[in-house]
């Protein structure tokens, strides 16, 4: 054997390996490179807008606190009755954080199931907005008085909506794991959900936990709430 064959073969093996490997990577990545660049820009825009929303929500909360203080200052005679009515109306509208006994449902994507069957349709293993919507509806049927999903209080104008791989509630993006808190009679709510969506999700082997809580705090609605078209009749 001539002396150059072995080193040349080694270099050839390495070279072929690198070539094929690089070729594979390139065919995998170049197709969405421009798109991912654009996506990164869009993500930046979204994030800055979300920060703006957050700061404005803080502002709203501060102003509502101020308003509460002013409203609580004069509490004599007829004003006191009106104030109590106001507080009740605020609770109804979801503008105050509330405390009471209730249940907390935690649900997450079925990652184990997806890992076990990687070729299956991943849609079968993730929590969809319909699941949350159905659970919320069933909680309402069970007499829930206040409901929040991942800290987003549900009020009359709240939406539960699918946007790509995320869920929008109160225009905020919600990602798994989903924590649904509901204040009300735990027994009634549990009966209501366990006859419907919860049982379906459990049988599909989603990781779900249900807790009963004596003291459950549900935060106030943080977003804007203005009625421009609807006036009291």
């Amino acid at each position, binding site marked *: 054997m*001539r*002396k*150059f*064959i*072995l*080193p*040349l*073969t*080694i*270099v*050839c*093996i*390495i*070279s*072929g*390996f*690198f*070539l*094929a*490997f*690089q*070729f*594979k*990577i*390139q065919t995998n*990545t170049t197709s969405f490179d421009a798109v991912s660049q654009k996506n990164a820009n869009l993500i930046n825009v979204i994030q800055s807008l979300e920060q703006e929303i957050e700061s404005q929500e803080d502002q709203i909360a501060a102003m509502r606190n101020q308003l509460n203080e002013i409203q609580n200052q004069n509490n004599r005679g007829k004003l006191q009755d009106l104030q109590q009515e106001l507080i009740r109306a605020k609770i109804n509208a979801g503008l105050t954080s509330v405390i009471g006994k209730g249940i907390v449902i935690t649900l997450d994507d079925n990652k184990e199931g997806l890992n076990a069957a990687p070729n299956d349709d991943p849609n079968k293993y993730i929590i969809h907005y319909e699941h949350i919507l159905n659970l919320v509806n069933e909680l309402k049927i069970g007499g829930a008085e206040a409901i929040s999903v991942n800290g987003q209080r549900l009020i009359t104008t709240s939406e539960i909506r699918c946007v790509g791989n995320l869920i929008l509630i109160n225009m905020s993006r919600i990602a798994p794991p989903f924590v649904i808190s509901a204040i009300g009679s735990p027994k009634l709510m549990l009966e209501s959900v366990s006859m419907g969506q919860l049982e379906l999700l459990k049988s599909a082997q989603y990781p779900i936990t249900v807790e009963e809580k004596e003291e459950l705090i549900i935060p106030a609605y943080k977003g804007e709430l203005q009625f421009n078209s609807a006036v009291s009749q």
Partner: protein
Amino acid sequence: MWFILPIIGLILGIYLGSNITFQLPAIYIKYMSIAVLASLDSVFGGIKAVLKNNFDGTILLSGFFTNALLAALLAYLGDRLDVDLYYAAIFAFGVRIFQNLATIRHHVITNLRQRKALARGEKNE
């Protein structure tokens, strides 16, 4: 034929590279491209040396590794300094590959001409 084994090696390398399931993070793709060029440069440099009859295995292998390492270091430095220094490595390797290929071509063509001339000479005798 002396080039059979290196070609088998090349095919083996391509087979290994296309069957590997290792996922490289996107930042290192740049470094991979330099490694590809360094190895190609070494292959052509080796072939050239074989044709010129001054082949040295130690020089070839050490050259391959130090060149690749140096180029990677340069690219890394460029990343830190926000200067695309790895273009320098790509350029250097590219020029060398072209030069090596040109020398190989010259050798092959002159070899063929000599053989033809020899064959004609034998006929004439």
